[in-house]
């Protein structure tokens, strides 16, 4: 009988878990290898999950290879599912009556997402959930989360610094960790998680397995670090408002807002009314971003007309304003903005340099 606690079993139990989700009618969204990139997509078979593949990530670079033991998160964050890039909000009929889209979201299981992405969902719960976005909440309440702890973080990961990984702490239904090829550790995080795990052939973890488990996660947490500490970071960054670092880094920035798009928490959007020829209209919500000039454009222009000011705003929002606004950091340390920046700009270096600048002037 499974209750709270830590259990272990063979790799085959993961397959059973996956199939159990499908049998219960969940749409399962999981990592999936597509055109040499690990995506987050609907999968119908456990064999589609790219166990046995590994990604190699660096600033502005991404590749995969077969034979690696651990894959990490690719470019798609859960945001893509929970907060779609383009969402029809409603239709206006020619007689000006309003038609809301019918129930669109099937019960969904996120399978094998990473702790940083789990953390991003808890950030979205505060932001989109906090303001009561009905589109977000409709899907969120039908969501079940199976998270895979990270034994081998990638080169752009810094979840350890952000306190979001490599081990998932809460907010999941089941967390699992692949220790060896045929040894998986399971932890339930909800009643549903307990129920699902009860169907598997798993045992309470022995001391030896527990030791292995804690060692693996400890090693991982030493890797996923950024060259800065969170303590006092919001204050230090605000003292760095006039640091030349932002301008220097922004010289390399294209302003493409790719980072906004891949960021698992960036929530800026644009609302577009598209008139139809019959006199009706469609209102859609699309992802926008603070790097774009038009996002905060008002009559007469944008208050942050220079790109460096928009870059600075993004960094400060994630690491300072967000904390005051929502009580958590806006960054979960997934490193997507680093890997997927076509200019190869490393956010970690920016923050490190700003903090150094502040300290060199005796600030903080």
């Amino acid at each position: 009988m499974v209750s709270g606690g830590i259990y272990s079993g063979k790799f085959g139990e993961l397959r059973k878990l996956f199939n159990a989700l499908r049998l219960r009618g969940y749409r399962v969204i999981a990592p999936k290898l597509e055109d040499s990139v690990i995506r987050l997509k609907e999968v119908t078979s456990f064999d589609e999950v790219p166990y046995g593949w590994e990604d190699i990530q660096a600033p502005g670079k991404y590749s995969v290879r077969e034979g690696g033991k651990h894959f990490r998160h690719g470019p798609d964050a859960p945001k893509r599912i929970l907060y779609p890039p383009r969402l029809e909000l409603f239709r206006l009929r020619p007689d000006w009556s309003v038609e809301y889209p019918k129930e669109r979201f099937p019960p969904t299981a996120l399978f094998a997402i990473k702790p940083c992405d789990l953390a991003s969902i808890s950030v979205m719960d505060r932001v989109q959930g906090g303001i009561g976005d009905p589109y977000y909440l409709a899907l969120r309440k039908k969501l079940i989360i199976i998270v895979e702890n990270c034994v081998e973080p990638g080169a752009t990961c810094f979840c350890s610094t952000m306190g979001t990984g490599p081990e998932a702490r809460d907010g999941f239904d089941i967390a699992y960790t692949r220790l060896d090829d045929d040894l998986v550790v399971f932890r339930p995080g909800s009643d549903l998680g307990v129920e699902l795990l009860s169907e598997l052939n798993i045992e309470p973890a022995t001391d030896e397995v527990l030791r292995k488990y804690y060692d693996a996660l400890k090693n991982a947490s030493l890797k996923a670090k950024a060259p800065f500490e969170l303590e006092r970071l919001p204050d230090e960054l605000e003292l760095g408002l006039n640091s030349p670092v932002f301008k220097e880094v922004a010289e390399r920035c294209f302003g493409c807002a790719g980072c906004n798009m891949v960021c698992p928490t960036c929530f800026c959007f644009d609302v577009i009314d598209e008139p139809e020829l019959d006199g009706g209209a469609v209102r859609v919500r699309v992802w926008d971003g603070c790097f774009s000039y038009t996002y905060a454009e008002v009559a007469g222009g944008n208050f942050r007309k220079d790109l460096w000011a928009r870059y600075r705003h993004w960094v400060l929002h994630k690491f300072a304003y967000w904390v005051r606004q929502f009580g958590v950091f806006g960054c979960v340390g997934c490193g997507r903005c680093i890997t997927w920046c076509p200019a190869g700009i490393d956010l970690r270096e920016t923050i490190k340099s700003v903090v150094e600048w502040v300290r060199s002037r005796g600030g903080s």
Partner: protein
Amino acid sequence: MMRRKLKVAVFKFASCSGCQLQILNMEDELLTLTDAVEFTYFLEASRATAPGPYDVTFIEGSISTPEQEELVRRVREESRILVAMGACATAGGIQALRNWLRLDDVKRAVYPNPEWVKALEHSKPVAEVVKVDYELRGCPVSKERLLSFIKQVLVGRKPYLRREALCMDCRRKGNVCVMVAKGIPCLGPVVQEGCGAICPTFGRGCYGCFGPSIDARPEALASRLREIGMKDRDVARLFKGFTGWSEKFRKVIDELEGGAR
């Protein structure tokens, strides 16, 4: 809803006619559209024409000859809203490649009697000659955006079309960045969205037919392309292709080519 039909004109200058063709390509919408729109001057569709003034005039093509300069001024006077349509009208088009060469050399290379050809020194975007109210970019222009523009004019709002970097649309669409994942040079970070990210969707880099996005920083992209191993000459060529004569790309090209023109 009955109202006066919108009088629309389509004029062609130095161009391939592909942009106008996008209007005729609106096969599913064309019949509904003509309930609200009257094409009063649109030679690719009909030889029946009516004089101006026009509510909306779409200009296809660049201004390449003295006659065209004259004509486009007259068209401007007859048009309430003037829209430059496509890469030629908004940036001078592929034919603007000749702007980096000597006109006489180009004429001699193409025509047996070059002295018969009266051409302007440069193939120019419409906005260099008359005031342009809106730009619809692309080679060819996007049918969806063209239709969206017309629909918005019809309801009487100020047309809103996003002018940000293609990257945003590409990533919204769920494409994987070809530059990051495949090392393919792509102009997407500095090119205006609107095409639906056709090329990256098929695993190719954007070659810039929509021209610079609002607030584009092509100089930063050029540095990055050189950093990942492209030669100056190749970077310049990539920018030159379709919208090289746009102010922002021209500056980068000239810098890469050492200011030679």
